[in-house]
């Protein structure tokens, strides 16, 4: 038996191009269904674990999947906005605790999540370094952001303009990093968390500027009276918030109409959840309340249906691949017919000939299996990031 493996090994090494091609083909066709299974299982885990720990989401009426994906995974699809009034409504109902979210902006490629400090307690996140945000303009970043941008506590981070060509749009705001979260193994590792009001400053609903009553440059003032000073747009607005200018920051208009993208509602109990959901179904024409778990279950249901289709396709491709590999082996052995005849002449039995063929196939199968297995191990190591990059963000 050892001699058969020796001869098979020598043959395989001599015909390395053919061998490598065969090994790659077999590895790939074996890898595909398992990798799909791993990725889908990880997708299910990532999607469901966030969804199951988020009881209810309140948002604008529309695509519930967009609402869930944006609120839980900070995906690029932005739902329509709701206002702070919706938060007051939830608070005043005493049925649930609200955590507002405003995820409109980004700092480079990382989402800026405007929320309250309750979010960290809700998600059970701890600060690894520094402290939570306490003042306007402060930010807590995920460990992924800190690593990739090489940021530490005390450093600054600039919000990105929404549109390079929208000169009248949101201004970049320089935020101070006050804390870095411990690794959460979730999308929060790659997010920038700020107070909700900071995102309103980024939007321009709040701002800081020189004291209008002491402006000396006449071109900065359009009109002035005892009660009202109207400034021109030339007046310098601060693009960062610090201890020196914090006092100058203020908001205009009614804060209850300030925008949000969603509210995480944590009901007191199931009865409260039912009552709250009932109120939104019957009273609210332009808002919806969804159960993220249900939405994600529907999504996974669709994914699994697609997966079954993909499985069928992979199965057919596998059959084709097996047939092709069978053809390759058949042709190979036909080409070696002379060699086989020679060894039969020399005194080799047919059984030994079969042994030689089996040994060759076995070695190729082993290498293919090893390659497939090690690829799956690597995939398992990075499955979280791959799933997040491919399916969630």
């Amino acid at each position: 038996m050892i001699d058969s493996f020796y001869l098979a090994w020598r043959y395989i090494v001599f015909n390395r191009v053919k061998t490598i091609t065969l090994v790659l083909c077999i590895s790939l066709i074996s890898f595909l269904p398992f990798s799909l299974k791993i990725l889908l299982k990880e997708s299910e885990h990532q999607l469901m674990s966030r969804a199951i720990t988020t009881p209810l989401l309140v948002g604008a009426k529309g695509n519930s999947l967009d609402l869930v994906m944006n609120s839980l995974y900070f995906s690029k699809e932005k739902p329509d906005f709701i206002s702070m009034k919706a938060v007051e409504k939830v608070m005043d109902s005493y049925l649930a605790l609200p955590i507002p979210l405003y995820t409109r902006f980004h700092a480079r490629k990382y989402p800026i999540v405007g929320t309250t400090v309750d979010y960290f307690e809700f998600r059970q996140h701890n600060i690894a370094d520094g402290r939570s945000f306490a003042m306007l303009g402060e930010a807590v970043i995920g460990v992924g952001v800190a690593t990739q941008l090489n940021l530490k506590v005390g450093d600054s981070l600039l919000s990105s303009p929404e549109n390079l060509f929208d000169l009248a749009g949101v201004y970049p705001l320089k935020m101070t990093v006050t804390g870095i979260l411990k690794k959460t193994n979730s999308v929060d590792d790659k997010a920038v968390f700020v107070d909700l009001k900071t995102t309103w400053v980024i939007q321009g609903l709040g701002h800081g500027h020189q004291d209008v009553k002491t402006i000396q440059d006449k071109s900065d003032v359009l009109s002035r009276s005892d009660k009202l000073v109207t400034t021109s747009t030339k007046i310098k607005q601060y693009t960062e918030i610090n201890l020196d200018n914090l006092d100058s920051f203020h908001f205009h208009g009614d804060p209850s109409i300030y925008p949000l993208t969603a509210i995480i509602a944590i009901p007191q109990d199931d009865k409260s959840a039912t009552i709250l959901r009932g109120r939104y179904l019957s009273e609210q024409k332009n808002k919806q309340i969804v159960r993220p778990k249900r939405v994600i279950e529907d999504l996974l249901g669709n994914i699994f249906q697609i997966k079954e289709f993909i499985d069928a396709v992979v199965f057919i491709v596998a059959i084709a691949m097996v047939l092709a590999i069978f053809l390759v082996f058949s042709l190979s052995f036909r080409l070696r017919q002379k060699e086989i005849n020679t060894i039969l002449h020399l005194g080799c039995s047919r059984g030994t000939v079969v042994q030689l063929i089996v040994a060759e196939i076995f070695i190729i199968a082993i290498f293919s299996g090893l390659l497939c297995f090690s690829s799956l191990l690597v995939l398992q190591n990075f499955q979280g990031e791959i799933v997040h990059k491919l399916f969630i963000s």
Partner: protein
Amino acid sequence: MSINFLFHKDTVINITMNRSNTNFVSKIILFSGLFLALNPVVAEDKPLNIYAVNYPVKFFAESIAGDHASVTLPMPADIDPAFWEPKAEDVAGLQKADMILLNGANYAKWLPKVSLPLFKLVNTSSEFRDAYISLNEGVTHNHGTGGKHSHTGTAFTTWLDFSLAEKQAKSVFKALSRKQPKLNAGFVQNFIPLQKALLELDVQLTEIGNALNGQALLGSHPVYQYLRNRYKLNLESVHWEPEEAPTEEQWNTLKALVAKHPAKWMLWEGVPVAETVTKLEELGIKSIVFSPVSNLPETGDFLSIMNENIARLKTISN
């Protein structure tokens, strides 16, 4: 001992992994657990750590909670609490509180600049938002160590309308009961006399208002809007500080005001400087102190100081 979060994070995830496993019961436990974790019922043997934005609300909380709460005013005693400028370490203390009692009516001007846990905020005037008084005054002025500010937007000394003060006290009582339901009986026992005292003040001031019968009055500072409206006082305000002598311009403004509003009495937040009192008397205007007691008083408490205020006001009506 506080109730701990019912599930470890991993356990939560484990419940959810098998789609067919999630069921009604685990959903109830999960939601309730989350709610309790974020808004825990505190055990009765541990005093609540409460922060208040001004002295009246602090007084209400202390009166109702008694030994079951430690109520903190985070700002120094010589600062107008509405215009306090907290630092990050001050905010950190607030974030750790079990409850943060707000006055409402945009009282705490510093609130939009800090990050506080929404779950712990109690707006004591949320039930009478429609009773807020809007302001049109927009004058900048110095205010002791507090820096420049303006009284635009909404009037915030809601407690000077004692019917509203009673509602604020009730709001504090309800919040305490939700937090420590087992101590509700004690809270009720404490709330009733407070409620009675506040309503009594309301009755007294109503009588004084009737007795004054539209007599012109002056306020040294625009903080008497709720007092004026509730008790039908014919009161107009200037923007003076008790510890500062008014400027020439300010005197001129007063004179112009008095010409249309011939008041004989001026209400002060605190004891004014003698020079100002003398000069006012020269104009035929006497001074009495009606302290809003926004911050911690040196002597007395909210009720005793209000009683003193009312006694002084009564002398005008007699």
